């Protein structure tokens, strides 16, 4: 492409993409920086919805209408293909969200915490317990340690 001219027309034509990027990055920030697993899932949802909005906004035609046939040959329709893609993506998205939340529930029940920092600590403790069990010749001690993972 030729050199980009940052005039008002260009900004009006592109500000919506930038806003979607801002929303996307907010979702990414929540996913990366927050320790709580439920909050991470919310962040992923935020990111996902922003991607949907980006796709749909690319399919919009100025002066167009929703892609439902009106019978008038002069009607301009917005692009229906992104709509089809995103429609199925939303439903698959809720299915995967439900799966993620189910995993969160199981993690919470098994370890007694859904905070990432605490989970990493518990994991370290478990690793340490396993190693010491392997090192010591006393039989049965390793099993006893494994039996109580959510000691916190």
């Amino acid at each position, binding site marked *: 492409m030729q050199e980009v001219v940052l005039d008002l027309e260009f900004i009006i034509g592109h500000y919506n993409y930038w806003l979607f990027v801002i929303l996307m990055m907010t979702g990414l920030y929540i996913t990366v920086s927050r320790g709580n697993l439920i909050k991470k899932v919310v962040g992923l949802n935020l990111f996902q919805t922003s991607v949907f909005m980006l796709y749909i906004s690319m399919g919009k035609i100025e002066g167009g209408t*929703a892609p*439902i046939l009106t019978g008038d040959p002069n009607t301009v329709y917005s692009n229906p293909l992104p709509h089809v893609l995103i*429609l*199925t993506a*939303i*439903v698959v998205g*809720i*299915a995967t969200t*439900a799966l993620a*939340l*189910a995993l969160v*529930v199981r993690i919470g029940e098994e370890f007694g915490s859904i905070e990432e920092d605490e989970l990493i600590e518990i994991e370290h403790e478990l690793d340490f317990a396993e190693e010491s069990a392997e090192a010591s010749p006393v039989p049965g001690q390793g099993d006893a340690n494994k039996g109580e993972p959510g000691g916190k």
Partner: protein
Amino acid sequence: MDHHSILRVVSKLLIPPIIVYALYVQWHGDFGPGGGFQAGVIFAVAFILYGLVFGVEAMTEVLPTSVIRVAMSLGVLIYAGTGFYALLVGHNFLDYESIGHGGHHAQEWGILLVELGVGITVASVMIGIFVAFASRTPKLKDEDW
């Protein structure tokens, strides 16, 4: 939620229109906005509302978990069955030309069948996931929220 009488009455009033609306969205998906995905979710919402207000036990008496399990696979089977029917009578997989009188008539019927499969699967999947979450014993009481 036995003490929330307003919630109970209002949700009882709301559930029948929600189901009727879901059926409208299901069968009018080819004329206006709507279709199997949306109708399935709206249909599921009616049952989820009932489950939230009156308890999951009451909901699973209306719709037993065995029915949900069967319906989940039935929807996919209807969809794939439409495809295999076309295959068996000598067309390509999911070629609706084999249904009914061909042409637009065949397309309408093919779309209706396929959307019905999608609707049944989505509705029962959403209800099933809700039941799976809600029938675990919650740690919280009403006041904790």
